[in-house]
């Protein structure tokens, strides 16, 4: 372990006294609490290769459980209940990792973990804000569309006695409601038989008597 590596860990320990967890001489993780509502946690794992800082550190980012200091969180929630909350997905984490790696490469040759961690925190907070904004926008759009749909029924051809009558004629024809009086085989109902005077008398009554 190089002097530079030890020195950086010392510095980080003083910057992140509560957040850092030392795993070994060359590896540690930093628990980042993001300034979001509700608080989201990210865990940044750092491992120094032998030649760091001449090579980039091995970085990993994980989404932490947000169980910590729940009291405080509850309080915060009571104060301001956000309409939307967002949980980082694996693709979000991958995106953060990519930008972290970029920063690491830019800082090749000097200790860069603080810069990287700060960048991750800022980028993640920005990302959270953006995602929430997207959700809000999507919701607004949804509401607009629903409202639009609801309003649409009041626009168009007005219903008047004339327009209704025209529609009704067309509609009834389409449904075939005016033809249903016609029965298969041209059979007539009993009423129609007598109305048209085409009935045969019940001459059987004499037979039976």
């Amino acid at each position: 372990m190089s002097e530079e590596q030890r020195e950086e860990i010392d510095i980080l320990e003083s910057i992140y006294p509560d957040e850092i967890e030392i795993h070994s001489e060359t590896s540690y993780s930093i628990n980042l609490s993001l300034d979001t509502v509700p608080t989201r946690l990210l865990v940044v794992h750092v491992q120094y290769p032998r030649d760091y800082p001449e090579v980039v550190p091995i970085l990993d980012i994980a989404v932490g459980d947000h169980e910590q200091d729940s009291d405080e969180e509850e309080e915060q929630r009571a104060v301001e209940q956000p309409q939307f909350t967002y949980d980082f997905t694996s693709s979000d984490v991958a995106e953060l990792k990519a930008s972290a790696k970029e920063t690491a490469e830019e800082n090749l040759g000097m200790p860069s973990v603080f810069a990287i961690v700060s960048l991750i925190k800022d980028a993640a907070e920005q990302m959270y804000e953006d995602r929430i904004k997207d959700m809000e926008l999507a919701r607004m759009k949804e509401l607009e569309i629903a409202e639009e749909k609801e309003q649409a029924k009041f626009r168009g051809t007005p219903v008047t006695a004339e327009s209704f009558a025209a529609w009704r004629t067309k509609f009834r024809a389409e449904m075939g409601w005016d033809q249903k009086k016609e029965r298969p085989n041209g059979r007539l109902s009993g009423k129609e038989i007598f109305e048209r005077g085409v009935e045969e008398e019940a001459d059987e009554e004499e037979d039976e008597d």
Partner: protein
Amino acid sequence: MVNITEKIEQIQQELARTQKNKATEYHIGLLKGKLARYRQQLLEPGPGGSSSAGQGFEVAKSGHARVALIGFPSVGKSSLLSKVTKTKSEVAQYAFTTLTSVPGVLEYEGAEIQVLDLPGIIQGASEGKGRGRQVVSTARTADLILMVLDATKPDSQRAILERELEAVGIRLNKERPNVTFKLKQTGGIKVTFAQPPQKLDEKMIASILRDYRIMNADVLVRDPEVTVEDFIDVINEQHRSYIPCLYCYNKIDAVSLEETDRLARQPHSTVVSVSESLGLQDLIERIWEDLKLVRVYTKPKGSKPDLEEPVILRLKRSTVEDFCNTIHRDFKDKFKFAMVWGTSVKHSPQKCGLGHAIEDEDVVSLFTRG
């Protein structure tokens, strides 16, 4: 008495939180069975309670069929009633007008159809609130439910009313599930499926029956599509009513013709504007059709039939025997045969017995002994 309303709420909450999957299927089925039982208790007058509670509202059945109007306040039920029936019910242009049930009579094709405006909506009835219980028992006696809806309001209004009716055991435009259920004294539970069931199994049936404390019964499921809900309906048979429903969208003058067209195309729906008198004739025709009444014209021997005043029968009870019974209870004892003209026979006239099913607009001559 333990508060049933609370129990119902608990079950509903549990149903809402329980995820639907294979593992919870039986549990959900059981919960639904319990829910149906508690809802039933709620609708029954409590022991020792005022047993006459149901009577106060009841309106004597008159005419050939009964239509019950159901809808939210201010959708125009009362105005509709006064437009299509003879009896003028008091209509005021403000909300919550109808407090008692006012029957009107709709005369059509020689039939008298009683049309009942039920007070307000039955919302809350499924929780046993207010007079909901009486309203429900009246709605049950209807041959047709006419659900009056506001064309300017979102579709959700209809779903709310349907849910309420569903909760009190009224099934709209639905046939009774094809399941035979027989209580037995001994022999345990015997379940037979005529075809492999799609949505039920023996274990589910047995566990629901156990919850109802039914130990001995024969169950024959003929329709493979029968669901848990259907089966629960079958157990609660005497508290279920399968009633046709016509959805009547009022106030179409306030929406576009395009929307009117859309609404008219919904199943079992018709569109009207009570205030502008649009579509009322079509509505009456649809009511008539949905009631499935049969007009029978009597023809005295050797003379012309009376085509003005038909005898009205129900389609489900329209045999020559039913026709005889409308004349006199003892008439069928003297019955010899009937001559029938119309669509129910191959050749008009045709000689028919008591069991012959009469169709609409048939002309019938009855011949008696002696």
